[in-house]
């Protein structure tokens, strides 16, 4: 690994039930395990990944959302969610993980612009 540290953003655009949500999570954990500074952004249907009281086992899908509780272990502390995406879906800021920051679209865009590598799933 070379020393050129980058600020990485994973922009989550898919509901928890989409295969790409799991792909985004796997990617996040790999960057974190290589000690790259990584931030998570949830926008659009992506905000549904954070919603409390989901139970994917009801549809025979492994509950990979539980893995997100390991974010603090991996020092993933920058977790941002777009307030407008929550509001337009009538979702309360009631999440199954801690330390999620609800941002206005303007703040959300500002934070996103601090990153050199942005992958969207």
């Amino acid at each position, binding site marked *: *690994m070379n020393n050129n540290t*980058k600020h990485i953003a994973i922009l989550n655009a898919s509901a928890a039930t989409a295969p790409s949500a799991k792909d985004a999570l796997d*990617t996040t954990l790999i960057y974190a395990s290589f000690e*790259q500074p990584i931030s998570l952004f949830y926008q659009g249907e992506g905000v549904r990944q954070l919603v409390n009281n989901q139970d994917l086992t009801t549809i025979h899908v492994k509950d990979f959302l539980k893995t997100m509780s390991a974010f603090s272990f991996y020092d993933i502390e920058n977790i941002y969610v777009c307030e407008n995406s929550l509001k337009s879906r009538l979702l309360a800021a009631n999440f199954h993980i801690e330390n999620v920051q609800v941002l206005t679209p303007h703040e959300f865009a500002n934070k996103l612009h601090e990153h050199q590598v942005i992958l969207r799933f």
Partner: protein
Amino acid sequence: MKTLSIVVTTPPYSPLTITAINYIKSAIALGVSINGVFFYQDGVINASEHHTIPNDEYQVLTEWKALNKNHNIPLHVCVSASEKRGLSDEITINAQQTTNINECFTVSGLGELVELSTSSKRVVQF
């Protein structure tokens, strides 16, 4: 030195993949150094040794091979995304170990994506 890594998530039968290839060719022509292509999600199907495209259509696999052979561009396919889609370099057929991934592609973990991200000036996802 302009360095670039590419993430491809679209399958060989999508025009989106042709765009990725043409973008890479433009970059090479402009003197950009391509550190590698990382195939993820449906992108891994590009590496399938056996996918067939009619003769009169754009030959995606031929193009990827040429980029690998003529320009030394490493082509990494994500191992977990591949296995989900039936692609592996460790399959057993008639008691023989074999592969169904074209030899121009390297089976890699997601760690390779981290390496490409940090070693390149820009990462572009297709």
